[in-house]
């Protein structure tokens, strides 16, 4: 089963290496990992999607927790959350098929961000299902290049993945 972890880490050099190294060393499979800073510039947040049964996940969480730079881990898989991913995709687009591509882009509420002589570059955001669907729809035209950020998540409503300053004392 796939699990989605929201992980708060110290914004220290090497923290990404520590996390990535741990996954490869212990034989855990990362589906995707995205990272960036939070409202507190000393703290970064990772969203890690990892494949494994409950036992593996328990070990992943415990081993991650052992890293000094890891502040907090939340497995949000069972919670209500918003998730988004950004994809840029460059497709072959002869003038003859441009109309058709633009229709697809419209249907998915994606955007065209660049036009070349023979290509279109499209930006799409959404949850994983939507991103996969756009990719599938554009595949017949010929995909030249594709890049995805990996997903980021946030719990819905009055639930937070935040570092509580009080916990420090």
């Amino acid at each position, binding site marked *: 089963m796939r699990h989605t972890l929201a992980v708060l880490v110290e914004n220290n050099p090497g923290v990404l290496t520590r996390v990535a190294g741990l996954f490869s060393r212990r034989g855990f499979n990362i589906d995707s990992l995205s990272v960036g800073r939070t409202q507190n510039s000393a703290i970064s947040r990772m969203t890690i999607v990892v494949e494994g049964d409950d036992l593996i996940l328990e*070990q992943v969480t415990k081993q991650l927790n052992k890293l000094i730079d890891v502040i907090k881990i939340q497995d949000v898989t069972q919670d209500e959350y918003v998730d988004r991913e950004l994809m840029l995709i460059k497709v072959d687009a002869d003038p003859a098929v441009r109309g058709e591509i633009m229709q697809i882009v419209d249907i998915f509420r994606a955007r065209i961000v660049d036009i070349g002589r023979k290509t279109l570059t499209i930006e799409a955001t959404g949850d994983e299902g939507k991103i996969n669907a756009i990719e599938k729809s554009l595949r017949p035209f010929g995909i030249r290049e594709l890049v995805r950020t990996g997903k980021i998540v946030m719990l819905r409503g009055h639930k937070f993945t935040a570092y509580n300053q009080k916990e420090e004392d």
Partner: protein
Amino acid sequence: MNFSGAQILLKSLEAEGVDTIFGYPGGSVLDIYDAIFDSDINHYLVRHEQGAAHAADGYARATGKTGVCLATSGPGATNLVTGIANAYMDSVPMVAITGQVGSHLLGKDSFQEADITGITLPITKHSYLVKDVSELPRIIKEAFHIASTGRPGPVLIDIPKDLTVARADYSYPEKVRLKGYKPTFHGHKEQINQAAKAIAEARRPVIFAGGGVIISGAHEELKQLAELILAPVATSMLGIGSFPETHPLALGMIGMHGAKYANYAVTESDLLISIGVRFADRATGKVSAFAPDAKIIHIDIDPAEIGKNVRADIPIVGDARNVLVELIERVQQGMATEWQEKIQEWKKEFPLGCDQAEEGTLKPQYVVKQICEVTQGDAIIATEVGQNQMWAAQHFNFSKPRNFISSGGLGTMGFGLPAAIGAQVGRPGETVFDIAGDGSIQMNVQEMMTAVQYELPVNVAILNNHFLGMVRQWQELFYKRRYSHTDLTCSPDFVKLAEAYGAEGIRVTKVAEVKPALEQAIKSSKPVMLDFVVEREECVFPMVPAGGVLNKMLG
């Protein structure tokens, strides 16, 4: 801007109460060594950086304090790696300080540059590459805190050369603030109640004690608990000394070379009270057949150990000593049962014996037993790795914690001599032995010079079988006696070698010579190397073949 980085480093170490460093100089640490020249800290110059790491490790295991080692950048740092890995596997508190090339040379494949924080990432509890001299006191404070609390382990601090010269004001922080590091010290009350209930219901309880008991200083509480509930106590290899082996409830070590009665008791138990153990494969054998009928209580300070190798029915995360204190309050005095009788019968039927003929070739087991007898069991015993290590574990009766110093998780040949040196530095005046093999001793034999220079009277007892004995044993048992590259007939004359270092060398070939030689060595104020020429093809028994079931032993 009153102090150089090097001075700040030493002032910070002094603030941590460090009085001993094992190290080796070089270009990147010249300024640190210049500051050491003026410092009260005792620096021990080893002869190879691996020796520094193992000596710091042995010092830490023998004293409970954090060991400190120091090396220059590049090859100095990489020479520490085995020692750091060794300390990591056995949860030994250590701070390793390495010099690094100047900040402006970093990442350019500069002379003697090695990415030591990268190299040691998987074998350190944490590491730092210092970026600014003003960070040094905080980093050192954090490093010692992380190394010595929770589940201890090595922490590495890599300091670029320019930062040892750069100047800053010095003030040492009083508190550490680490958002992501808060070990759990007290066990969950309800879980402890569950454990007490399971103990009350058990008919065949066994306590399984590990290195965690020694680290947390819980040996008295362990004894109280065992005597209260009348449960026999088995240990892991690193747990040796957590419970006096002379005690009627002692079972000694379990596992691949554990005593039969210990392995039988664990296998037939209905409750295994596991304290500060990590259920290593060498201890459990085949996991699915390990203590098959037992409910398992697992007390450990590291939550990641719980459920990692063996299922835990009642997990308790916390410091072993704290948890035991609370558990003892909740259990009732036990009564003698058939279980205890059965265990006494097993002990009588399957003793860990040794059949030494008066006139025959020396048996290694006999030599170990004699070391135990002559020292009255009151000595620090470091070991190398292989048969020598197992015979030391089996035949020396340890009655105190921190007296058995042996490389468990990594199984590092060459550990024993430098570790014995570190132990002797930490506990001067006590008798220290390194029980060694003729193979292992050659891996760090250069440290004899360190022992001689600092007048550390360690005794090296080589059980010389002219083989890489443990590997030969596996070849005998599982590879049709094809002794591929394990014959060490071609070896130095260890007596002459000892003498070349300015130590004493004694060769022993006969039974009658053993005791006098040991007495002479213990009396000597010099380091002594004893070359016990023993039976060449002796095997360590009992033995559970790798991955086998604990109660199915050879021998």
